[in-house]
């Protein structure tokens, strides 16, 4: 549904002179992908089929037959990939990308640059050996329109597409592009610290302690008996260290040399050692920024930042900066969210929310231990109820962290028990808002607010707010979503409007009516007749 392609006019000032047209839409020849693409694609597909042949081999198939089958499968794949390659072409008409594809059913996709959310350029190791790159064009929409993948094109061609789609986003007639500037460079020490600490194997000593404590239950002798006496400890240590180093290396390789480049009006994120990625990040499309502080982050004094824009659902972790030093955090948020004020104080939630938080964390312990107790009926099982203590502590901490705040530009929502997460959502990107409260919440005058934003983030949930506040805030958000820029509120009068019988979700508010949800009278029985 490209029904909204009337948007390009919006990008120009209304009184601007007719665009000087830097690249007039002249007929260009249709272009094929890089000739290496069918081979690369066939290899990838064929490589997914290897388990079949492995199973055949194990089950006693003759190696010769299997090799022949393999060859046959590979050539079929290659033929298919080649046909698809022949039936796939594209061209840039001015700043519009047109892609024709399909072997039997022909599809022509026309993608005007202003509908492009993000252009990603991936260079995997195999691509770099061949001097090619994969270009992923993400289009706006609620997952109804798939991304366009040009896999693969020559690297200079990838750059040409990127520049063309990107240039169109700049207001025509603006000053010539400023040179690129590196806005943020991931410090190596922070990356290394974060990578080492965040690897799951960091938990190894803890796991060892648990196993040691359960010593009687686990037969260590049998598990390690095959190792020569005295070498077990060494074995465990070396294996652990190797694992730790490997996991660290994976994280470092993935985010190696991460940096943000400030181009003329955009940001570009680049990272990766083996697979090199380049993402165009149109900052005017960023709708939310998520800040994560994990235990690893706390130890390495870094935070993880994710910038969410509205795309049709590509890899949301693409615009992820895993280890931003705390000192750089404000300036980076300023880069990702230009002209957006995110300074707002975060208020905690009412005290009744504490009860729910503790209950939420302890409930699984009660359930699991209870079931184990009933199943085993052993005397030591009740000791497992000691897990209630850490669970309860986490519940208390989760309540302390829980909170929200707002200013003219954004809503902030914070939650978490082990890893704290703060989401800043631009108010003018809110798609819709809702409030819900179950019976328990209504008894406590609490409600959960959900802010719906475009995919792939989809929604931001603020749990257990004060019910009245939740209704008022959600209503304001939905009604003000219209304002083009955050900050200007053309519809001030609406705040005086009837707050939509806010009391319905907040029984505490209309005179101690906490017994009123048994169905005796519906939410607004005064306005309608029921049961005729």
């Amino acid at each position: 549904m490209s029904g909204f392609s009337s948007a390009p006019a919006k990008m120009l000032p209304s009184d601007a002179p007719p665009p000087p047209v830097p690249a007039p839409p002249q007929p260009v020849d249709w272009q094929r992908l890089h000739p290496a693409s069918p081979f690369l694609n066939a290899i990838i597909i064929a490589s997914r089929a290897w388990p079949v042949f492995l199973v055949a081999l194990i089950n006693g198939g003759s190696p010769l037959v299997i090799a022949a089958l393999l060859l046959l499968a590979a050539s079929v794949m290659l033929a298919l990939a080649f046909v698809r390659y022949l039936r796939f072409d594209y061209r840039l008409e001015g700043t519009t990308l047109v892609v024709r594809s399909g072997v039997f059913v022909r599809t022509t996709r026309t993608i005007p640059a202003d509908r492009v959310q993000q252009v990603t350029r991936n260079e995997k190791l195999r691509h770099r050996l061949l001097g090619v790159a994969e270009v992923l064009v993400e289009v706006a929409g609620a997952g109804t329109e798939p991304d366009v993948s040009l896999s693969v094109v020559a690297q200079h061609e990838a750059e040409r597409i990127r520049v063309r789609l990107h240039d169109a986003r700049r207001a025509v007639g603006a000053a010539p592009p400023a040179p690129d500037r590196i806005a943020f460079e991931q410090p190596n020490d922070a990356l290394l610290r974060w990578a080492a600490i965040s690897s799951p194997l960091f938990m190894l000593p803890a796991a060892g302690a648990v196993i040691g404590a359960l010593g009687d239950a686990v037969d260590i002798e049998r598990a390690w008996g095959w190792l020569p006496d005295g070498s077990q400890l060494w074995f465990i240590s070396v294996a652990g260290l190797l694992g730790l180093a490997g996991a660290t290396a994976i994280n470092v390789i993935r985010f190696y040399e991460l940096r943000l480049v400030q181009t003329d009006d955009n940001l570009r994120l680049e990272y990766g050692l083996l697979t090199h990625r380049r993402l165009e990040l149109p900052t005017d499309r960023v709708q939310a920024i998520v800040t994560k502080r994990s235990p690893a982050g706390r130890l390495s004094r870094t935070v993880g930042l994710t910038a969410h824009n509205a795309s049709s659902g590509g890899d949301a972790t693409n615009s992820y900066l895993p280890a931003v030093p705390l000192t750089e955090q404000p300036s980076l948020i300023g880069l990702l969210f230009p002209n957006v004020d995110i300074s707002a104080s975060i208020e905690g939630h009412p005290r009744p929310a504490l009860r729910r938080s503790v209950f939420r964390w302890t409930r699984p312990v009660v359930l699991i231990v209870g079931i184990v107790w009933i199943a085993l009926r052993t005397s030591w099982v009740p000791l497992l109820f000691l897990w209630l203590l850490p669970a309860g502590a986490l519940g208390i901490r989760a309540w302390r962290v829980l909170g929200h705040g707002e200013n003219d530009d954004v809503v902030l929502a914070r939650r978490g028990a082990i890893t704290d997460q703060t989401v800043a959502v631009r108010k003018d990107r809110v798609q819709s808002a809702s409030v819900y409260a179950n019976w328990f919440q209504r008894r406590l005058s609490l409600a959960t607010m959900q802010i719906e934003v475009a995919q792939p983030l989809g929604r931001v949930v603020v749990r257990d707010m004060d019910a009245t506040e939740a209704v008022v805030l959600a209503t304001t958000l939905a009604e003000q979503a219209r304002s083009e820029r955050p900050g200007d509120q053309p519809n001030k009068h609406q705040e005086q409007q009837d707050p939509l019988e806010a009391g319905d979700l907040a029984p505490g508010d209309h005179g101690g009516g906490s017994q009123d949800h048994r169905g005796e009278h519906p939410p607004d029985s005064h306005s309608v007749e029921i049961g005729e």
Partner: protein
Amino acid sequence: MLPLDSRVQRQWRIEAAGFSAFAAIVLLGAAALLPFGIAVRVGIAVALIIVGAAALQYLVGLRYRYWRYGLAEDVLILQRGVWTRRRSMTPYFRVQNVDITQGPLERWLGLKRLTIRTASAFTDASIPGLDKTDAENLRVRILERAGQDAAV
């Protein structure tokens, strides 16, 4: 705020009855595994079926009584829910498309369901049980207000 067309209760009652019938078969099958005499087994199953089916039918009434929708100046408001009460507000100008659907039961009863979609998959704006002409009118009114702005 408007209630749904009261005919939707009939639709829900039939759906609930269908579900009950399905559950009854499962329950009777499960009862065969119980370690009691045949009379006790069937008795337990039948009691559960009757109680469950009655509860479902009772819920239909409640569900209907709590369903409200309304068109405010800038937003469509939906309010519903018995145990979890939910109110959702969707600004018209975020509307990407409005779907109207009609199942076989709805066709028989002359009802339609109207669903609004925005760029978020979590926007929950679907109104069941509208009289078919009401549904069309509502669609027109919503699209009128949705205006010309790009929604993303």
